[in-house]
C-alpha cells in the first residue's frame, strides 16, 4: 500500500458568527499517495471549510492534522507557510494569477520562493510543466491574454512547480465550461496516473466526482460516506 500523505484526526471547526455551530464535526480520514479523492456535499456542508483546514491556511480548529507524517497542528504561521510552499499545491475556482507577471513568471514564483533550484533550472521546470499541460506556447504571454481554461491550466502548472506531495483543489472546474472542465479533469487524472500525484478536490460537480478514485461525502459537518481506500 502506498504511504499516507495527509491524515485528519477528529477535526472540529466552530463558526461563531452569528451563532456558534459546528461546521466540521469530528472529521477523520486519510489520503494515500497517488489517490485522486473528491469531497462532495451540499452547500454549507463544510466541504470548503475542510479543505482550508487541510490547506493549513485555517488554523482555528481542534483535532490533529498530519502531512507526510508530520504533525501540522500548532505550527507557527511562518512554518506553515514553508510547508505550503514546499508540500502543497493549490488550484482554486479563480485562477489568482498575478496580472503583473508573465505566465512563466507566475509559475516560477513559488519555486523561486522555495529556492531549491537555480532560476534557470526553475524556468526549465516551469516549461516542462506547461508541456505536460499542453500549453507551452503560452509561456511568454501575460495572464490577461489567455482564455479561462488556459489560465486554469497555468494555475495547475503553478501548483505543480515544487513537486508537491498533494494538490488541493477548491472547485477547480467551477468557472469552466464542460469542454475545459473535461480537459482539467483529464489533466488531474493524468497527473495521478503518470506522476503518482496525490489529489484532493472539493467539488459540487457530481459527474466530476464520479470519475475520481474515491468520494468523501459531507453533510452537516460530518462524513456520511467514505468508501475504504
Amino acid at each position, binding site marked *: 500500500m502506498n504511504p499516507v500523505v495527509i491524515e485528519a484526526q477528529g477535526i472540529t471547526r466552530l463558526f461563531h458568527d452569528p451563532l456558534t455551530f459546528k461546521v466540521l464535526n469530528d472529521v477523520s480520514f486519510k489520503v494515500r499517495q497517488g489517490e485522486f479523492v473528491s469531497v462532495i456535499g451540499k452547500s454549507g456542508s463544510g466541504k470548503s471549510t475542510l479543505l482550508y483546514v487541510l490547506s493549513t491556511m485555517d488554523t482555528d480548529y481542534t483535532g490533529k492534522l498530519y502531512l507526510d507524517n508530520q504533525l501540522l497542528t500548532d505550527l507557527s504561521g511562518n512554518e506553515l507557510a514553508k510547508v505550503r510552499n514546499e508540500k502543497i499545491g493549490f488550484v482554486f475556482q479563480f485562477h*489568482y494569477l498575478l496580472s503583473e507577471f508573465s505566465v512563466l513568471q507566475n509559475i516560477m514564483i513559488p519555486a523561486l520562493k522555495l529556492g531549491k533550484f537555480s532560476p534557470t533550472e526553475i524556468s526549465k521546470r516551469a516549461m516542462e510543466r506547461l508541456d505536460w499541460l499542453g500549453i507551452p506556447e503560452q509561456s511568454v504571454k501575460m495572464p490577461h491574454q489567455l482564455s479561462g481554461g488556459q489560465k486554469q491550466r497555468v494555475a495547475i502548472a503553478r501548483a505543480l512547480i515544487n513537486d508537491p506531495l498533494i494538490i488541493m483543489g477548491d472547485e477547480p472546474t467551477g468557472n469552466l465550461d464542460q469542454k475545459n472542465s473535461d480537459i482539467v479533469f483529464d489533466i488531474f487524472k493524468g497527473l495521478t496516473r503518470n506522476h503518482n500525484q496525490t489529489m484532493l478536490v472539493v467539488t459540487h460537480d457530481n459527474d466530476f466526482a464520479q470519475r475520481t478514485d474515491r468520494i468523501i461525502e459531507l453533510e452537516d459537518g460530518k462524513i456520511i460516506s467514505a468508501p475504504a481506500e
Partner: protein
Amino acid sequence: MKYGLILNIAWHLLKARMKQSLVAAAGVLFGIALFIALVSFMTGLNQMLDGLILNRTPHIRIYNEIRPADSQPIESATDYLTSSHFIRSIKPREVGRSIRNSDAIITALRRDERVWNVAPKVSAQVFYQSGIISIAGQINGIDPAIEKELFSFGDYVIKGEITDLNQINNGIFIGKGIADKMLLATGDLIQINSSKGEITMLKVLGVLQFGLADVDDTQSYTSLSTAQQVLGEPASYITDLQIKLKDINLAPALASEYAKRFRVDTIDIQTANAQFETGSDVRSIISYAVGVTLLVVAGFGIYNILNMLIYEKMDSIAILKATGFSGSDVRLIFLSVSTLIGVSGGIGGLIVGYGLSLLIDNAPFETQALPTITTFPVYYNPTYYFIGIVFSLITTFIAGVFPARKAAKIDPVVIIRGK
C-alpha cells in the same frame, strides 16, 4: 534569503500603479528638494547677515575703559564706614585710552596657541574737514594685512587697494557716506582735525562700504603710524587689540583670563552680540520645520498609495500567502514598495534640491547695503543632503509600516472563499 524575489514582486506591484507611485515619489522629491534649497538658502543668508557684523567683530577686544577711581578717600575713614558717602573728590584720571605695554601683550597673545591672530588698532574721534564743512567721525589706524586676514577687510573696499596704506604715507580710506557728502574721490585731500586740535592733511586712497549707514558715514581707516601721527601720539600708542580665536566658543573664558593677566578691559563676542546667535537659530528652526512638514505631507501620499495598492492587490496577496509566502514576506514586499518610492523620490529630491540651490545662487540680488553681494547667498553643505535623504527614508518607512502590517495580516482564506 530570496530578497531579490521580494524586491522583484514589489517592483511589479509598483509598476501596476505607476502613475500614483510617481505622484507619491514626486511628493517626496519636492519635500526633499525644497528642504535642501530652503536650508541652504537660509544658512547662506544667515552667514551673510552674521558676516555683516560678526566677521568684522573680534572674538575678544582688549581696551582701556575710562573709569572712576576704585576708592574715594572718605571710604578709608573708619568712622563713616556704614554711612552714605556723597563726597566724591577724586575724578577719573586721564590715563589715556592707550593700552600700556601693548607690544609685550601682542607678543604674548601671538604665542598663545588658542589665538588665531591679533590686530592692533588705534581709534580716535576726529573731525573731517573739506572746505568749510566739518563732519564728526572716527579715524582708525590698522594693519591692513592682518585686518584683511582676520576681518575680510578687502570685501568692503569699493575703490582703491587696501594694502596701499602700507606703501603710501599719509593715505586714508574713507567711508562711502563721507565720500558722498564731501564730494571726495580717490586722490583728493581731506583735512583731519584731532580732538586735541592737531590738523593733518591726508590723501584719499580709496572708499569703503560696509553696508551699515552709521559706519559708512563716520569711519575712516589709515595705517597705524599715520593714525598715531594724526593724534600726535608715539608709536607705542594702541587703543584696541582685536583678537580672533581658533575656537570662537572659548571667547568668554579667555576674555576674563586676559583681563586678569594683562590688567585690561576685555569684552567677548558672545556678550557683545548675543542677539545674532538667537536670530540665526530661529531662522534655522523655521527652515527645518518647513522641510519636515513637507516630508510629512509626502509621507501621507505614500501611505495613501500603499493602502490603495493593498486593496487592489488583495487577490495577489492571498495567492502569495497560499503558495508559501509568510506574513513577514508580504510585509517586506510592501515595505520595499514604500522604500522604492522613498529612495527614488529622495535621490531625485537631492538632485532637484541641488538644482534649486544653484538657481537661487545665480539669481541676481543687488543691494546698496551689500556691495560685495551680487546674487542670493547659498551655503552648500553635504550635511543637508544627508539629512534630506535620511529623513525621506524615515518618512517613507513609517508611512509604509502600517499598510504593510495590514497586508501581512490579510487572511487568504477570507479572500479566496469570498470569491
